[in-house]
C-alpha cells in the first residue's frame, strides 16, 4: 500500500529552500573547483571568493532576451525546461536528511525517485524535439537512448540494497545501516549506481546529449535566458539528489563514521549528511575535470555489456546470500 508521512511546514520550507540554494550555489562551486583543478582561478571577482557570481549569473539570465524560435513548437518548447527542475525537486522531497528532517517519508521512496528520474528524461526529449533544430534532435535522441538504457541497471544496481534493508523507504534504509554501511556488501552495486547516476544526471563524461564538440549544445542549443537556466538548475538539482542518494543508500546516511557523533542526533546527522553529500558533489566535479567523453555507441555497449551483467550478478549473489542466511 501507498503510505506516506509529511513533515512539518517548517521542515518542508527549510529542506526545499536549502536544496534549491545548494543547487544554485553549485554553479559557483563547480566553476570554482573546475578552475582549481585546471590551473585557473575560476570566478573570483564578485563578492568574497566570487560567491556572488551566482547572483550576477542569475541577473544576466533573467534579463536576457527570452527568445522562442519561430520555427519551434512553442507550447512544448516552453514546457520542456520546466519539467526537469520540478520533478527533481519532487525527488528531493523523499530524501531523509537527519532524524526528523525531510519533506516526506514514502514507503515506496526509492521507486518514487526512479519514477521522477524517468520523467526527467522528457525534459531532454521534448526540449530537443520542440526546438526543431537538427543538433537538438540528435541531442534529444542521444539523451533518450541514454536515459532508457542507464535507468535499467541503475534500478537493478540498488535492488541489492533493498534486499538487505528489506524496505523501499529511504529512512529505513538509512536506519538499517546503523551497524555497517552498504558500500561494503554492495560494492559493485555502488560502482554501477555511481556510473548510472552520472549518466542519469547528464554529468560529464556522460553529457552526450549536449556534447558541445559534436552537437554544439545538443537538446538545449536553441534555449536562452531563463529557459536555459531552468535546464541548468534542473541538472544541478539532479546532481544534488544524486549526491544525497549516495550516502543514503551506501554510506550510512546521517550516521557518523567511526562513532564520531557529537551534539544532538539532529546536529550530528545534518553535519555528517552534508559532509558525505558534499564529498560526492565535489567528486562529480572532479570527474568532470578528469575524464573523457566516450562515443555514443561505446557508451551504449558499455552499459549493456558491462554494467547490466555486473548489476544482475550483484543482485543474484546478494539474493542468494540473504536466502542462505535466512535458512
Amino acid at each position, binding site marked *: 500500500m501507498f503510505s506516506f508521512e509529511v513533515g512539518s511546514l517548517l521542515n518542508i520550507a527549510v529542506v526545499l529552500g536549502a536544496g534549491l540554494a545548494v543547487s544554485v550555489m553549485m554553479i559557483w562551486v563547480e566553476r570554482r573547483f*573546475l578552475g582549481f583543478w585546471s*590551473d585557473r582561478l575560476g570566478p573570483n571577482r564578485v563578492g568574497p571568493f566570487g560567491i556572488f557570481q551566482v547572483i550576477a549569473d542569475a541577473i544576466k539570465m533573467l534579463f536576457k532576451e527570452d527568445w522562442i524560435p519561430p520555427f519551434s513548437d512553442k507550447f512544448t518548447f516552453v514546457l520542456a525546461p520546466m519539467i526537469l527542475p520540478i520533478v527533481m525537486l519532487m525527488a528531493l522531497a523523499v530524501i531523509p536528511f537527519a532524524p526528523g528532517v525531510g519533506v516526506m517519508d514514502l514507503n515506496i521512496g526509492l521507486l518514487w525517485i526512479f519514477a521522477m528520474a524517468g520523467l526527467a528524461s522528457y525534459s531532454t526529449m521534448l526540449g530537443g524535439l520542440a526546438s526543431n533544430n537538427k543538433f537538438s534532435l540528435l541531442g534529444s535522441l542521444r539523451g533518450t537512448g541514454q536515459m532508457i538504457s542507464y535507468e535499467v541497471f541503475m534500478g537493478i544496481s540498488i535492488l541489492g540494497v533493498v534486499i538487505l534493508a528489506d524496505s523501499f523507504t529511504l529512512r529505513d534504509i538509512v536506519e538499517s545501516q546503523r551497524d555497517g554501511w552498504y558500500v561494503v556488501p554492495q560494492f559493485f552495486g555502488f560502482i554501477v549506481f555511481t556510473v548510472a547516476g552520472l549518466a542519469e544526471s547528464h554529468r560529464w563524461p556522460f553529457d552526450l546529449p549536449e*556534447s*558541445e*564538440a559534436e552537437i554544439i549544445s545538443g537538446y538545449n542549443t536553441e534555449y536562452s535566458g531563463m529557459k536555459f537556466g531552468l535546464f541548468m538548475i534542473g541538472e544541478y538539482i539532479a546532481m544534488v539528489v544524486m549526491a544525497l542518494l549516495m550516502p543514503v543508500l551506501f554510506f550510512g546516511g546521517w550516521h557518523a563514521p567511526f562513532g564520531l557523533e557529537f551534539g544532538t542526533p539532529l546536529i550530528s546527522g545534518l553535519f555528517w549528511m552534508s559532509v558525505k553529500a558534499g564529498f560526492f558533489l565535489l567528486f562529480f566535479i572532479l570527474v568532470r575535470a578528469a*575524464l*573523457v*567523453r566516450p562515443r555514443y555507441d561505446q557508451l551504449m555497449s558499455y552499459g549493456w555489456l558491462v554494467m547490466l551483467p555486473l548489476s544482475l550478478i550483484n543482485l543474484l549473489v546478494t539474493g542468494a546470500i540473504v536466502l542462505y542466511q535466512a535458512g
Partner: protein
Amino acid sequence: MSNSAAHMQQSETELPAVIAQLYQKFGESAFVRQHTAEGMPTVWVDRDKILEVLKFLRDEASPRFEMLLDVTAIDERLRVHRDGQPDSDFTVVYQPISFSGNCDVRIKVALKEPDLNIPTAIGLWPAANWHERECWDMFGVVFTGHPNLSRIYTPPTWVGHPLRKDHPARATEMDPYRHDDDIVDTEHEAMKFNPEEWGLERKSDTSEFMFLNFGPNHPAAHGVIRFALQLDGEYVLDVVPDVGYHHRGAEKMGERQSWHTYIPYTDRIDYLGGVMNNLPYVMAIEKMAGIEVPDRVKVIRVMLAEFFRICSHLLFFGTWAVDLGQLSPLFYAFVDREKAFNIIESITGGRMHPSWFRIGGVAQDLPNGWEVRVKEFVDMFPKKLREYDKMVMANTVIKQRTMGVGKMNTQDAYDWGMTGPALRATGLEWDYRKDRPYSGYENFEFEVPIAVNGDCYDRAAVRVEEMRQSCEIIRQCLENMPSGPYKSDHPLTTPPIKEKSKLDIETLIDHFLSVSWGPVMDPSEVSMAIEATKGINSYYLINDGGSGAYRTRIRTPSFIHIQAIPFLSRGLMLADFTAVVATTDFVMADVDK
C-alpha cells in the same frame, strides 16, 4: 643530408636527373628549360603533353614523384622580364615532389588567351581537385574534365578572378558597394543549400538522409569552416567542406607590398605559426638576393620557430582533448603556451604575430638574460609532456576514441597531398628539417617521430613527440648560441645596418632607399619551403625587378589537408568526425590565405 645543396649546385652545371629522364622519354624538343634562383629543375611543356609528363613522373621516373605538392598559375600579361620563357598569358605551374629521391621538379604550361584551358590532373592525384578550383577561381583557368570546377574562396556570385592583374586589389579601386534588395536576394539565393549541387544524394533505398550544417560557427570546427554532413542517424556518409570564409587575398596583397613590408602579412597566414611563417619568405628573398645570414641569425630563427611549433602543437593538443570530451588538458596546455609566449614576447615584443624576421637577419638582437627564461622553459616542459602522456595519451577512453579512427596509409597521404605530422603518422620518415636542412637545422640533433597506423591517435602522438624534439632543439640553441651580428652585412639586408649610414653620404642614400623603397633585386624566380607547424609551407616568389613580388604563391598545408577530411571520415560517427577534424589540425587563415 646535404643532398639539396649538392643538387642545387649540380643544376647550375649539368642537367638534373629528372630533366634528363624527361628528355629521354619525350624528346628534348618537347621542353623549354628555365633557370631559377633556387635551382629547382624547371621546364616548360605543351598543354597536350602535361598529363603524360605528370603520369611519367608519378609512375615511371626514377625516383618517382609521389606527391603533387602544388598547382598554381601566374598571370604573365604584365610581366616584363621573361627572357627565354615561352610566350604565355597565363602559366599553370605544377610542382610534384619526390620523397624517395628527395627532389623537386617544376613543370610549367603556357596558355594563351582566350584559350585558357588545360586537362585536369585529378585522375593522377585527387589532391589536384582543390588546387585546380583555386586556379580557376583566382585566374579563370579552366581545367577540362574537372568534376566540380566552382568557386572555392570567393562566393559563387563573385565577378572576375581576383589574382588576375586587371582585377582591383583594393576597395577604393572598385565602384562603391551597394547592398540593394536585388543583391540581397541574389546572395540569399546563392546561399541556399541544395544537396545535389554538392554532390550529395537525398536518400538511399532504405533511408532518408539528414544534412547537418557543421559550421561555419561550430565549437569544434576550429575556425570559420563549414562542413555539409550527410548523416544516416549518427553515421557520417559523406562530407563536403566549404572554405573561403577567411579568404583575404594574401597573395594579392603580396603584389602590392614591397619585399620588406609583406613580412607582417606572412605571420597571419598560419596564425599559430607566428615567425615560422616569416622564415620561408625571408629565406626565399635571401636566396634571390644572395644573402648569407650569420650563424647567430640562423640559430635565433630556429629557436623561435621551434617555440612556435611548440605553441601551435600545444593548442592542437588542448583542443583535440576538448573535442574528445576531456576538459582540463586545454587549460594545462594554455598555461604552458603562455609561458612560451612570455619568452617570445620578451625576445620579440610580440606574441602571436611578432613579424620579427627580416631580410638578412632578425629585427633585434636577443635581450639580456634571455638564457634564464629559455632555460626555465626547457627544464620545465619535458616534465609537463610526461604528465600529458599519462593524462591524455595513455588514457583508455582516448585510445578507444581515436585508435583506428580516420586511418590513412602513406599512399593515401601521397594522393591527398598530406604533409607534416599527418604524413609522418603513416610511417614515412620525412621531415624538411632533416632531409633538406635549412637555416642550419643540419647542426642540430633531433629525431623525426613517426607512427605506423596513420589514425587519429597516431597523428596526435607524432605531434606530442615533436614537441619533445622541439624542446630538445631549443635546448641546443640555448647551449650553442653563436655570438656575432644579428643582421647580415649584405647591402640588400633590410633594414640595413644603421651604423653604416653614419659614415658617408653614399651609405646614407643607400640606407634611405633601402628603408623607404626596400631592396630591388634582379628579376628571378625562387621558391623556398620549410617544415611548418602543420606540414610543408612554401613561398614561390616571382620577381620582375620591382621592389616587391610580381606574384607571391603561398602553398599552405592546411588548405590541402582539409580536402582529405571526407576521405578520412566517411562511415564514421559524428563524434569520430570531430576527432578527425581535430587531428587534421588546420588553421582557417592558413586554409583560406
